[in-house]
């Protein structure tokens, strides 16, 4: 176990190093000048030169990269060109909103998707056909289109859900503990804020969940069907186990590994790829921050976001790998 952990940590270090090299090289070869973006439309060439010097963009690339790496070792991701704040502080501000949305979305598609896929696998006929239709729709409908339609119907026409944002105008954010409004308002007993923040989560979470739901349903359905045909299932039934026991303890449990893998990958995607949805729903998360950083040629921020997202992916994969062992003790971490 310890050797496994050491290998994973060393592997992660190489992944991080690789990402820093890639993001640094890409961000410095594109023909856009961060100093110019920082200076604004009306800046003179002299002003831009001063800003370039202040941002230390006038030094050789290897020197800039070395400084970036040494800063990284000390937990310093640099300073954002657009917000002029430490990038770590910016990420602390925006990441909780994305985590909150991703968590609710994950809960939604897992709680709905896994049972639905399971049902579709064991009950053919109408349930299976309806589920298939849902999954096809989930994969086929572009999320941005769904987002706009949901806004149009549930906000503009029926007026039952807010259009977006994290809180209604006039509702103050709770004193931060985790920076996740639902959690913080619960911890502080602010029920009105809790209700309001939960309402604001519904539309973006549903929009994001539908596409992921389709994948989870399909994977669950496929795994359950494959496992149902295995010899050990026939043996279990021959031993006289109840159908419920066969389904839950044998078929479902053995189907969990690919399902968990898929849930993990989808959650990683949510943390990095919910950009369009965050923009449409004015959700102030990492996606919005990344978009603004890219538009502003704020390369330190882009590199910081990329690095954090990559680390989250690595962490999720690590947790999933560990969970394999819990689900199936025969599996070796080696």
């Amino acid at each position: 176990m310890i050797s496994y952990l050491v290998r994973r940590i060393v592997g992660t270090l190489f992944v991080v190093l690789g990402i820093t090299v890639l993001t640094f090289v890409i961000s410095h070869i594109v023909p856009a000048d961060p100093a110019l973006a920082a200076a604004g439309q009306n800046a003179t060439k002299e002003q831009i030169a001063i800003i370039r010097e202040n941002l230390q963009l006038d030094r050789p690339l290897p020197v800039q990269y070395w400084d970036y790496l040494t800063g990284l070792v000390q937990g310093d991701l640099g300073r954002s060109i657009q917000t002029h704040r430490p990038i770590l502080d910016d990420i602390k501000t925006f990441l909780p909103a994305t985590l909150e949305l991703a968590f609710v979305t994950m809960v939604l598609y897992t709680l709905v998707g896994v049972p639905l896929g399971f049902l579709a696998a064991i009950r053919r006929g109408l349930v299976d056909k309806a589920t298939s239709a849902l999954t096809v729709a989930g994969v086929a409908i572009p999320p941005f289109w769904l987002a706009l339609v949901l806004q149009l119907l549930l906000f503009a026409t029926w007026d039952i859900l807010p259009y977006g944002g994290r809180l209604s105008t006039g509702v103050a954010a709770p004193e931060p503990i985790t920076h996740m409004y639902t959690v913080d308002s619960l911890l502080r007993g602010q029920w009105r804020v809790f209700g309001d923040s939960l309402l604001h989560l519904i539309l973006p979470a549903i929009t994001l969940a539908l596409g992921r739901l389709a994948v989870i349903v399909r994977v669950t359905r496929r795994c359950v069907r494959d496992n149902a045909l295995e010899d050990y299932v026939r043996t279990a039934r021959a031993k006289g186990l109840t159908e419920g026991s066969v389904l839950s303890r044998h078929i479902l449990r053995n189907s969990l590994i690919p399902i968990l893998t898929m849930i993990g990958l989808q959650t990683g995607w949510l943390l990095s790829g919910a950009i369009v949805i965050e923009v449409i729903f004015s959700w102030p998360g990492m996606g919005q921050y990344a978009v603004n950083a890219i538009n502003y040629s704020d390369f330190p921020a882009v590199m910081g976001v990329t690095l954090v997202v990559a680390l989250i992916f690595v962490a999720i994969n690590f947790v999933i790998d560990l969970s394999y062992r819990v689900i199936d003790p025969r599996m070796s971490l080696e």
Partner: protein
Amino acid sequence: MTTDIGRLHGSTPLTRRTVLAGAAAGVTVTAVTGAAPEGAVARSRARAQEGARAFTYAYNYVTKSVDPHNAGDNPSMVGVRQMYEGLVDFKPGTFEVEGVLATGWTISDDGLTYTFTLRKGVLFHDGTTFDSAAVKRSYERLFALGLSPAVVVKDRVTAIDTPDPTTVVVTVTEPFAPLLTTLFMAFIVSPSALDANDGGDQAQTWLADNSAGTGPYMLESWARDASLSMVQFEQYWRGWERADHIQRIDIRYVTELVTQAQLVTQGEVDMASSVPVDELVSMIEDDALWVINETGLVEYLVRLDNTRPPLDDLNFRKAIAAAFDYPTTITELLLGFGAIPRGYVPMRYVSHNPEIGEEVFDLDAAREYLAASAYPDGTSFTCTYIEGVEVQRVASEYWQAMLSQIGIDLQLNPQQWATMVERSTSPETRDNSGWFAFNYGQKDETFAQWSTLSSKSAVAWGNYGYTNPEVDALLDEALRTVDDARRIELLRQVQQLARDDVATVNAMISNDKLVSSKRVTTYYYEPAAPTIPLFYHYGVS
């Protein structure tokens, strides 16, 4: 030369009478009936009755900074302008400069010395008193940080003297006409707050979450990428006499323009800064909304590099200008919310040359110009526009289609803004032509024209290679001319020369369009700063 401060009295409520008056003055405020979802107005009213007279503004960009000396872009200025003031500002509804923290000023005969008399009894948000030391300290910080648009005067200012607490003397190296309008953006910060919160970074960290100006509103909270909230500063020197003054401002960042339209229709926000033109057409039918349609301030034009082939050929430039379908662009692309330009300066600007006629689309004339050029059989040239700016993309494609009819191949090259600017700085990398939005970015007409057309322009995103020594000389003289009438005369000559020389293809004038709920009772359009309204002058019921 002395200018006295004028207090704003008797603000203009948005009534049908105002609408008509506004329309007569080139301002259109349209109110109509119909399609508001049930309860939208009631909800808007209910929200207003919850407490203070709150005003919610949907804005399509995100505030980058609330530090007044670090606000180089309009999205940041929208917030900063509510909390900070300079010595001067624009009189609401006009291009006229008036004193704010200065009660008046004199300019020496040689145009080198500006003596400002400061207003007494003005308090900063931290309770300290405004005086000349605050002006000096703020200007020094602004110059040191180098991030405010007002820093363009840095190299021209040789001294800032404070002979007494109510006098500031600014000395410049040479006469500089845009000095006053530039000082509009040189905001004054409380020196006590700067000292107390210096933190080794000139209080930049502290000013990211606090305000220390003299403006009518104080920073309450800034949820980055989500909203900016400000509350009334009770001790504001202009007072709060009007019954409809806004007491609380919430700026919500809503980047999706369709969403902005939905929000204002639903009464979730009081004003939407940007609404798609096709949505505007239906919103005109909504009885709960004002549709404000202000003409003539933003002109989209294509700057031409006349130093390289094929655009170094005047007849070729005339051909491509005549092949631009101006009327169709206005009717089909802007759906009528715009106008055909007359020269490269929008018609509403004071310096606009009224003798310049409307741009004309004429393919036959274009063919004749092309035949007279060095490229009678046509050729190709490149044009860049900002990726994602639909109005530039579609207009470029219209133009491309028309040019193809006369044998010219227009190669479009969309770029991210920063990339476009980077490429434009060198003849080796820039395209033959590039789109540009001529507006009041510099808050000064002279500086805007100089930076766009002069080959000596120091502004990076200014001149696109166009060179004409006569234009350069006139613009240099205009920049040094403090006398308004003479300067306007010079600028009008430049416009005529630029027209004759086809320095630009003047594509379209896009109106400024706002939609507000009828809770908004007082509204001023600020032609000199249309994208950064001062909400103190607004009112809500």
